[in-house]
């Protein structure tokens, strides 16, 4: 084996190390140094998500479904697909095939610009597709767990509002006889996945209704009004002689 071939085998990892370093440099620059304009993501699905999130927020605030063209986002998405999934992998494969056909170069780093460009583009996508996807999956799980808790809180809050208003109505119609008021006698049908507890003193018109969810949130040692521990609990004060209903923070266990 010639001296040149030996040297070439020993340092064959060097081009990969250079490509990996360039990839890390680009990835770090994109992540921390704001080298891209605001709200620009190179991956097409992130662009598509960004546009739909913006549309959903606009619809939420003004009620109109936005049917704009979003040409800027469209071109970025198409450009990203072409660059990372066509040009990058194609250059990598073709330059590898071509390099195999060439005689062993004296300089081990001399793989050609095409090889470096292709390898860096593939490595960038790989970085996004493997660790990036793992992080994304983790965030996805946490986000939707948190959204489910908020949904439960909203449903309980809605039920409490309806029950509180009806308790006040019953109070007026019964000439203020608090002792006759009972959640079971209300016409409103709250969500049966949750528990509601009415706390009252027959000498006082102010009543408290607790809504208890089936999920654990906040303080694990919290004592719920139905005897459970650590479950979500929202509290509504019903004051038929005052402001009628009012959500209060006392005795609550919220997300």
């Amino acid at each position, binding site marked *: 084996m010639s001296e040149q071939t030996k040297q070439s085998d020993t340092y064959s990892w060097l081009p990969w190390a250079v490509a990996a370093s360039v990839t890390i440099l680009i990835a770090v620059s994109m992540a921390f140094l704001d080298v891209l304009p605001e709200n620009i993501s190179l991956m097409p699905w992130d662009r*598509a998500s960004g546009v739909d999130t913006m549309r959903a927020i606009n*619809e939420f605030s003004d009620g109109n479904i936005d049917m704009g063209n979003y040409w800027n986002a469209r071109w970025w998405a*198409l450009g990203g697909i072409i660059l990372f999934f066509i040009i990058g*992998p*194609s250059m990598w494969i073709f330059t590898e095939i071509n390099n195999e056909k060439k005689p062993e170069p004296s300089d081990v780093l001399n793989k050609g610009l095409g090889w470096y460009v292709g390898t860096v583009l593939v490595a960038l996508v790989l970085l*996004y597709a493997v660790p990036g996807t793992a992080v994304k999956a983790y965030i*996805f799980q946490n986000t*939707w767990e948190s959204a489910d808790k908020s*949904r439960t809180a909203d449903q309980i809050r809605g039920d409490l509002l309806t029950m509180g208003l009806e308790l006040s109505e019953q109070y007026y119609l019964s000439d203020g006889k608090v002792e006759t008021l009972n959640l079971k006698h209300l016409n409103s049908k709250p969500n049966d996945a949750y528990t509601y507890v009415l706390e009252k003193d027959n000498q006082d018109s102010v009543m408290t209704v607790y809504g208890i969810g089936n999920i654990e949130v906040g303080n694990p040692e919290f004592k719920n009004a139905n005897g459970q521990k650590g479950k979500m609990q929202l509290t509504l004060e019903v004051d038929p002689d005052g402001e009628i209903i009012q959500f209060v923070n006392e005795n609550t266990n919220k997300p």
Partner: protein
Amino acid sequence: MKKIILWVGTGIVVTGVAFFIPSQTGSIWPSVIASSIAVFVYLIVLMVVMLPKITSGTKRKMMGWTLSLLIIGSAVSAAISYVSTQRQADTLSEIRYTIDSKVAELYVKKPMLKTLRAYHSEDRVDDSAIGSLFVQKYDSLITKDSLFAHEGIKDNKMLTIYLAKANQDSIVLITESSYIDGKNADYQNFSGARGQYQTKGILTTNGVHYERTN
């Protein structure tokens, strides 16, 4: 060189055509999904045709695994982004429904209950009927075009409360949301709109009857 230009050119044309087949208004997901399918097919064909031309077995396997990982990882990432976007839109819509439906209920029932309280109060000095009592109490909020302009919803442009009927013995308030779709798309709303969410609250001496009418 010629070969790579031919492959890349074909890939760009196929992906570009797939991208522009769906409608180019609103969400860009249909275009992104169509072009992603096209580009994944391109990558698989590229691997099947070109990778066997690499003579080093180790290098061939490494490249094959890398590109497979790239396709699978990207597809999973795209799927997470898509599901997340859809859920986000659904959640926002659900939140808006919860807010508007409960705000409607609160701002219809609360003034009605306050009127009911005044009607049943032991301290009541006049003997007005419940309908008249409501109109006296909330006269400043009732506009010429029968809107019940409650302070609490003045900033909410998508929820309107109408005083649909006011007579001696009863009051009817109707709420209509321009954001929430009703159950029946052909339903004729109070404002003349069609298929929107609508509720009705009726106040009589027997109490408040509140129901969703669409």
